Every structure is written in structure tokens, then in C-alpha cells.
């Protein structure tokens, strides 16, 4: 990891990965959508509504994975002062917030026909809603400091504290007996879903992960270019004031 603390080397590696990640995410998305919307069987109870799962579940996984990546990079930026780490956290936050929003919206659309309501105050839904506000808090906190490095540290601390929410989300369906179904894919006794539905789900999840890295690279590059532009402008102002 420390090898990539050098921004030049890091962005060179990004450039190598970038076209492949686009290719992978687009092909996985096409394959996954074909599998999930056409190939996969109709659920005997839910009918075609079950297909919302292929959009909803990967989004929910991503919302947690993004926070995990964010918290880990915040930790390494605080502990080892890794040069890229906070940049990754900062670029991940809006993506994670969007995935969380997507999970909440698709869940609500799935909940209406299945549970008969758009929203219930159950433990899983509430904890994911809190996750969404943690993302928003992180982004807002970072932007409310004039000194960016200070904002980075404050936001990192907040992200690490908020990570307490992750195990709560994961185990909320087991700890509290509520409307949201308990874990059916990632559990010790093996998945409780048939392979015909599990395969499209995993392909879609893979597509989402690749998509995340795709957007992350774009955002990282944009952030680095913005820093360069700011530095350039600052230099320009310095030269002008010296001339005056």
C-alpha cells in the first residue's frame, strides 16, 4: 500500500486499470441485467417483483462496502498520513451516499407491493437511513473548514466513529425480529437462495463493484486536477502581487 502513497505512481496505476474497469463493469452490467431480467426464474410468491432484488441488494452491499472503504482509508490517513488515503475517502463518500440512497429507494419500491407500505421503521431500514446521514455529515463536515487539512482530519475522525453503525446494519435483522427478511446470502450455513437467482445477483454485485472503481478513478483524477488548478491559481496570484 505504501508503494502507492506516491500520487504519480498511483495515478499511473489508475490509468492502466481504467479502460479494463470500464470494460468489466459494462459487460458485467449487460450480462447481469440479461440474467436478472430475462433468464432468472420468477419467484413463486413475489412474481416478477423479485427482480427488484438484483438492483436493491447489490446497492445495499455497496452502501456498506463504500463506508468500510471510507473508514479504512480515513484510518490510514490519520495513522500513517498516507497521501492518497483521504482523497479516496473523500471521493468515495458521495458514491456511497448515492448507493445508500439507491438502496433506500429501491427497497421502498420493493416494499410497496410486498409489505404493502413504502416505509417501515424497522431496524434494518432505520440503520441504513442513519448510514445515509453519516455520509451527508462526513461530506458537510469536510466542506465546512477553510483549512482543508483540518477538515480532512475532523471528517476522518467522524467517519471512524460512524463505523460503529456497520455491524449494527449487518446484524440488525438478526438482533431485532422485524419486517426486513434476515440474512439469506452471506451467512455461516450457506446461502438460502437458489443458484438460478444467486448467479445474477453476484454478477450484478460484481458490476456494481467495478462501476464503483470506475467512478472512483474519475473522481480521484478530478480531485487531483482541482488541487493542481488551485495551486496554479495561487502561484498566479503570488506572481501578480509580487509584480505589483
Amino acid at each position, binding site marked *: 500500500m505504501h508503494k502507492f502513497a506516491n500520487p504519480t505512481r498511483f495515478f499511473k496505476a489508475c490509468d492502466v486499470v481504467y479502460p479494463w474497469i470500464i470494460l468489466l463493469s459494462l459487460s458485467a452490467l449487460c450480462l447481469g441485467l440479461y440474467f436478472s431480467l430475462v433468464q432468472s426464474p420468477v419467484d413463486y410468491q413475489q412474481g416478477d417483483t423479485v427482480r427488484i432484488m438484483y438492483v436493491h441488494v447489490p446497492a445495499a452491499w455497496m452502501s456498506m462496502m463504500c463506508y468500510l472503504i471510507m473508514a479504512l482509508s480515513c484510518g490510514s490517513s490519520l495513522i500513517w498520513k498516507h497521501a492518497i488515503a483521504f482523497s479516496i475517502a473523500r471521493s468515495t463518500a458521495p458514491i456511497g451516499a448515492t448507493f445508500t440512497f439507491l438502496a433506500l429507494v429501491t427497497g421502498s419500491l420493493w416494499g410497496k407491493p410486498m409489505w404493502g407500505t413504502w416505509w417501515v421503521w424497522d431496524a434494518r431500514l432505520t440503520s441504513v437511513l442513519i448510514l445515509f446521514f453519516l455520509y451527508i455529515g462526513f461530506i458537510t*463536515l469536510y466542506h*465546512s473548514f477553510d483549512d482543508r487539512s483540518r477538515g480532512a482530519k475532523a471528517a476522518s475522525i467522524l467517519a471512524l466513529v460512524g463505523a460503529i*453503525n456497520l455491524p449494527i446494519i449487518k446484524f440488525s435483522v438478526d438482533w431485532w425480529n422485524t419486517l426486513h427478511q434476515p440474512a439469506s446470502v452471506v451467512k455461516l450455513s450457506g446461502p438460502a437462495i437458489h443458484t438460478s437467482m444467486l448467479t445474477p445477483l453476484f454478477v450484478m454485485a460484481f458490476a456494481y463493484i467495478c462501476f464503483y472503481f470506475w467512478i472512483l478513478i474519475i473522481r480521484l483524477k478530478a480531485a487531483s486536477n482541482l488541487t493542481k488548478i488551485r495551486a496554479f491559481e495561487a502561484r498566479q496570484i503570488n506572481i501578480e502581487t509580487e509584480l505589483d
Partner: protein
Amino acid sequence: MGRFNAILSRDFRLAIRQGSESLTVVIFFVLCVIIFPLAIGPEKGLLVRIGPGIIWASILLATMLSLENIFQKDFEDGNLDLMCISDFPLELVVIAKITAHWVTTALPLIIVSPILAIFLHMPFETWLNLIFSLFLGTPVLSLIGALGSAVSLGSRKSSLLIPLLVIPLFIPVLIFGVSAADANFLGIDSQPQLVFLGGLLLGSLAICPWVISISIRHALS
């Protein structure tokens, strides 16, 4: 322990001499509770049912008012720098300041809550559970709130920022606090909820002072 008490008594003296601040929080709390019966109607059954929730939500909002002042003034006038430089552990300074905050803002709120319980027609058992849950829960609010206050030191609009940061973290306290007080209506035992609140208190007591002093050091450097 001498210096811990010194910080504690300094903050008490500041709170007593400025007086108005603790009083403002109490008045805000009372007004907040009064607003609910006016907004949803004075029907007795309804008020009895949601009384604990009203009091907990109002305590949450009232606590929010006072959070900015935990560290902000000391940060601005340089007292925090001195506390940080001294060989007295910053973690203990933080615990002292949080204790002072709890005694000067949360304790008055708990003291006035019996009067408000009368306003809301609250039965005695509910009120007793509510008091227990407040005694266990409000220190957690002070601890987490101090964290929000420390993290936003030196930001541009900390008074707007702090609620945004701490409300999501307050939610577990609110849930267990209300369900402990509401146990009679929910038909559950209040003890597990109170034990959970105690767990939250011990957990945040272990984590928060440490994290707060890290963020204060970052803010001062």
C-alpha cells in the same frame, strides 16, 4: 484528582455566574414539551401514550443547543491550548468538561421533568422508568455531543453543523431511552432496555474522551 476538580469547579462557577445559559436550555426544553400538546391536540390518552417520546425528543433538542459551548469558548480564548500543554492528561480534562456540561445542562432538565410529566398526564411507573432512562441516557448525549463539538472546532458554521453530525449518533440512545420509559405500554420489561442504555454509556465513556482529545489536538495543531 485536584486538577480534575479544579476544572470541574471552574466550569460550575462559569455556569453559575453566567446563569442565563443553563436557564435558557431549561426554558427551551419546557417550551418544546408544551408545543407538542398544542400541535397534536390535548387528548389525554394520546398524551399518556407518547409522553416519554415527547420528553426524550425535547431533551435531545435542548441538549443540542448547549453543545457548541462545551469547547468553543475555551478554544477561542486559548484556555484549551493551556489544558492541552499541561502534563494533566487531556482525556481527563475532557471527562471533567463533559461532567460539568452534564451537571449544568442535563441535570436541570431531569429535575424539571416531573412537572412536565404532570402536564402530559404521565403515570407514576412510566415516570419512574423515564427518570432511570434519563439518568443513564443523558450522559451518553453529553459524551457524543462533546464529540460533535470537538470535531467541528474551528469550522465556519459549527452551530449548524453539530446537530447534523450528532443526531444520527443520538438515535440509538433515543430508541432505547424511549422503549425503557414506554415499557409499560409496549408490554415489555424495562430492565433490558435500561441495561442496554448502561452499555451505551460505558461504551461511549470508553471511546468518546479518547477520540475527543485526538480531535482537540488536531484542532489546536
